[in-house]
């Protein structure tokens, strides 16, 4: 390992947050190309499956993390509770903020069909989303945080899979449509709104 790789390793070890290529280059007073080379060397050292620590690229930067092989022992040693899983409501809000950001609470409610106050509050409290100004109607807008990217192992926001991947299949869609039409036809008589 050359000196730049050694220094890069130390910086990633010390920094509590992922460090971008640019900041690594600044701190080491090197070019980004050199740092990328150093990172490649580090990656060899921290090859998946061979070490307890792995080099990861998340939230727009590089960081070291422990391999899941150590999860159980780490829990015994640190007695730090795992981050609680997301409830369905929280996950839905997070998905909407993740894909549509910046997005307001009324908009989240429109899509979910349900007021989303408490789920949004929890996501804010857990640091997964944050406020991001106001819409032109004055509603608070939300976006995801770096912690979100870190905890979900995303290199960047656009590393989220394309949202069309979650669209219902054409068969599901046709099926749903037919059922709706039947419901409509069953009521030829107008009802009161």
């Amino acid at each position, binding site marked *: 390992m050359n000196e730049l790789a050694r220094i890069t390793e130390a910086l990633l*070890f*010390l920094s*509590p947050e992922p460090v971008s290529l640019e900041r690594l280059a600044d701190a080491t007073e090197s070019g980004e190309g050199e740092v990328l080379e150093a990172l490649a060397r580090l990656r060899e050292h921290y090859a998946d499956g061979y070490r307890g620590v*792995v080099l990861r690229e998340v939230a727009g930067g590089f960081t*070291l*993390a*422990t*391999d*899941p*092989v150590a*999860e159980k022992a*780490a829990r015994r040693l640190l007695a730090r509770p795992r*981050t609680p*899983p*997301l409830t*369905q409501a929280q*996950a*839905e809000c*997070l*998905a909407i903020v*993740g*894909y549509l950001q910046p997005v307001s*609470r*009324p*908009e989240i*409610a*429109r*899509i*979910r*069909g*349900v*007021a989303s*106050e*408490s789920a949004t509050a929890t996501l804010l409290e857990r640091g997964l989303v944050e406020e991001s100004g106001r819409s032109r*109607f*004055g*509603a*608070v807008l939300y976006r995801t945080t770096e912690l979100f990217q*870190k*905890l*979900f*192992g995303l290199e960047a926001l656009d590393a989220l*899979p394309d*949202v069309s991947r*979650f*669209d*219902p299949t054409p068969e*599901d*869609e046709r099926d*749903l*449509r037919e*059922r*709706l*039409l039947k419901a*409509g036809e069953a*009521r*030829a008589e*107008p*009802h009161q*709104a």
Partner: protein
Amino acid sequence: MSVASLDLDLEVFQGPFDLLLTLVLREEVDLLEVELADVVVTYVDFLQDRGEIDLEAATEFLVLIAALLELKSRMMLPVEETDGLELEPSEAADELLARMLEYRRYRDAAAFLRERLTAEQGYRYRSAPLPAHLRRASLEVAEAVYEPDRLAEALGGLLRLPPQIDLHHLARPRVSLEQRLAHVRTLLRKQASFSFDDAVQGADRMTEAVTLFALLELFKSGEASWDQSEPFGPITVRAPAGEERSAGAGRASTGPGSP
């Protein structure tokens, strides 16, 4: 108010309003059977009771109720009345269908996120404070940022002696038991009975307390007795005449010095 706390009691649906659209989107409630006018009436009643409007929550309500109204009216519009709109029955359902599809997309994206979070739980990141030497300003690049006078001023403050607390102005009442005993004995000699209030008229609390103590002394030595018909009521002090002492048993329970 929170939209979630608006409780509905409709023919086809009972529960919090904010569940209604979800159930419609999940096809668990038939929108055509929901009396939306009742929902609005319930909301207006609720607002009236509250007397205040939370704008964010009101917006949420409007968004939800508007969506419901739009969906429902489109589904109900008879074809011949859609002057210029020419909505086919299939188009009427389109809006609701689009909404349902949109919801499903994010429901499935949510499932993906939950799985992803679980998969990522195994990776732990280090969160340790920086080593001490990195937490200090470095000597080579340190610049003068503090004002030396701040130290001289702090030291000057520490040289200040606290102001002496002068207690001379506090007159210390001195009341002796002997004085009060003499006072009560004098009163008893003058009259067969008198009220305690008369005995301490115009006196301070300390004098009152010592007088009561003097009375206890006199009771002990048999020089006086007293009675009080109710708690905090007037206390009557008497010289111990023979007939009164024999009647004393009957009233002893209320007297402060009862044996």
